[in-house]
């Protein structure tokens, strides 16, 4: 179950929440803090990821590996998860290396579950 993967992910230091949204913009699974409108965030995240992917391909950057949105109070990292997109919310000060490794492990599991 994807929710279990997300709950496990959320235990990583610095991660505040996570979700998997389809490339069609519809939420597949979500474990985000309660005050966040998951469906709205999912729609926007998929649009942002899609636009980033299109930009990267237009510039000739090769496959999109990750997008990162940095805000004053936190970050959003998004990675391609096959049929969907894995998005995680983090604190503003995080160990990005650790987060990336943890995300990679989660993405592999999620890709398998979605195919």
């Amino acid at each position: 179950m994807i929710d279990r993967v997300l709950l496990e992910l959320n235990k990583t230091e610095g991660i505040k929440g996570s979700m998997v949204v389809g490339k069609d913009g519809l939420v597949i699974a979500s474990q985000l803090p309660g005050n966040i409108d998951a469906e709205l965030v999912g729609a926007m995240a998929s649009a942002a990821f899609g636009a980033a992917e299109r930009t990267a391909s237009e510039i000739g950057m090769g496959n999109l590996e990750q997008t990162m949105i940095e805000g004053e109070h936190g970050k959003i990292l998004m990675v391609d998860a096959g049929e969907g997109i894995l998005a995680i919310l983090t604190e503003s000060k995080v160990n990005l290396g650790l987060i990336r490794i943890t995300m990679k492990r989660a993405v592999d599991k999620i890709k398998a579950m979605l195919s």
Partner: protein
Amino acid sequence: MKKDNKIKVVVIGSNDVGKTTLMENLIGRIGKVEYKGITTAIDYGSLTINNKKIHFFGTPGQKRFEFMRELTLKGTDFALIVLDASKGITKEDEEIIRLLESKKIPYGVFINKIDIGDIDISEIYNFCNPKFVVKGCAMKKDGLNELINEVVTHIQ
């Protein structure tokens, strides 16, 4: 991928026809990605009717954001084309209809701004095959009940 009771409707049309205004008046609270009144990425809102949740995704109409139309159309169950009665059917509108037909996406038409113009319904049926055509004015909430009834009837 199974979508169990999740329905995606994309609101599409050329620039300034009133897509965002329509979504705001149809749904109420929507999320918008915009700059000075121009939608730059998407609008999003949802309605639950008869136990079905309908997710509405609005698209930008400006030509430079054409790529967002394709992106947003992924996995769509139904499209709602908005036309501007005061402009008539434009070349851009025809291109959008051709895009939907090429992707075999069923669609309905909402003729907006009938307070300041008109489009003959037969003109629309002359060159395309919508599931329905509804006339109204999004800003005045005119025709919106009829529109939502038609959308609900035609989504599977």
